[in-house]
């Protein structure tokens, strides 16, 4: 049975989750890949980050976007390989992030006691896009380009697997 959660996530929301649980996530997620992570950490160090990541969920994703009707539409948006972001993990989690969505897994250590790693199926971008209802905002599109920009997405019942839980249990490498 799936657990339903809504962002922002609190500590109690994530500490009870166990690797293997299915979560249906609703609310806001922020896409971020390599360049966006660097930028977020630079701006946060200068206290100039234009959004609040306390309780937030970061999605390792570079979507296919269609422009039209005065806004943006997400066409396909599956997860990208999370391991590339291992080097930024500690910094990002220290900003209060409570969930990371990606594929392939990450170093489990930094998740202990505070955050979970949600997996969605890599390559299933057309299916993931069905859970994305709206593009609320996009940051740094001109500088970083479509795949690397931060897309602020509204999701509804996004079906995710808890792949690394806050106890350090992981579905990877068993």
């Amino acid at each position: 049975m799936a657990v339903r959660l809504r962002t922002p996530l609190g500590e109690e929301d994530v500490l009870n989750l166990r690797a293997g649980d299915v979560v249906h996530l609703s609310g806001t997620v922020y896409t971020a890949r390599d360049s966006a992570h660097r930028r977020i950490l630079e701006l946060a160090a200068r206290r100039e980050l234009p959004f609040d990541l306390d309780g937030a969920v970061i999605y390792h994703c570079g979507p296919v976007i269609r422009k039209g009707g005065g806004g943006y539409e997400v066409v396909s948006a599956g997860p990208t390989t999370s391991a590339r972001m291992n080097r930024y993990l500690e910094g990002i989690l220290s900003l209060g992030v409570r969930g990371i969505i990606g594929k392939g897994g990450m170093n489990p250590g930094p998740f202990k006691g505070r955050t979970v790693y949600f997996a969605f199926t890599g390559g299933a971008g057309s299916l993931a896009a069905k859970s994305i209802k709206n593009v609320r905002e996009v940051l740094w599109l001109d500088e970083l380009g479509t795949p690397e920009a931060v897309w602020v997405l509204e999701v509804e019942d996004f079906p995710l697997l808890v792949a690394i839980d806050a106890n350090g249990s992981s579905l990877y490498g068993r």
Partner: protein
Amino acid sequence: MLVDAIVEAIRLAVTRIPDDVVSALRKAYEREESGVARFNLENILKAVEIGRDGSIPVCQDTGTLTFFVRAGVESPYLRGLEGAIVEATRRATREVPLRPNAVDVLNGKNSGDNTGLFVPVVHWELVEGSEIEMAVLPKGGGSENCSALAMLTPGEGWEGVKRFVLERVRECGGKPCPPVILGIGVGGGADLSLSLAKRALLRRVGERNSDGRIAEIEAELLEEVNSLGIGPMGMGGKTTALDVKIEVAHRHPASFPVGLIVQCWANRRAFLRIKPDGGIEVWQ
């Protein structure tokens, strides 16, 4: 018109997963017992349907567009073909749409239309005759990052090939979106081995090398890769690879190069033929 046909081939490749790949994915789904493996394969099969029915890219990583052209030297359509490929890439990026994936290596600036220095990638092969055949392979970055080259000593031989491939696949785990398809090129030097490995991905899943000895190694390696237990998305299971494809070239006596190209489950491809009378066929 030629550009329209190339745009169509690109659209076909990114929105429709070939039947042989889908049927291998269905078989994998039936074979898996764990809930987690089935969650992933079920999502994959759903995504394939949504892509096909809505004519939208199945995976958001529409890759680096790579074209393999076998150009008949007497074809009247050779002139301008490279320009048509570049133009079709720009149009497909807008119209399909594709994700713009071409980034300047020095300043990280995205060109916005999937073109740039040496991209789209075009491999040319000149052949006799007056027909042009080309394949488009949109290759994703996550799986490409697991590709590798090994310069083995001849003494390590085919056992060395197996060891290298198994080690690399184990090390990559869930990163390249398993179940993967492995393209392996052996011989020919460092550059050719990798090029052969990528070309091997154009073969249908289940289609063995025409040389029975190589076919046997493909089947053995497939079984060994699947016994690693990495499973769909690296979360455990019986299917780590859908297939293994090996292409070979003669080698230098001192060298035993092995190129490995790792392809995610979305083994996308489409083909196009330009006949001497200007007729064009597009298929998958």
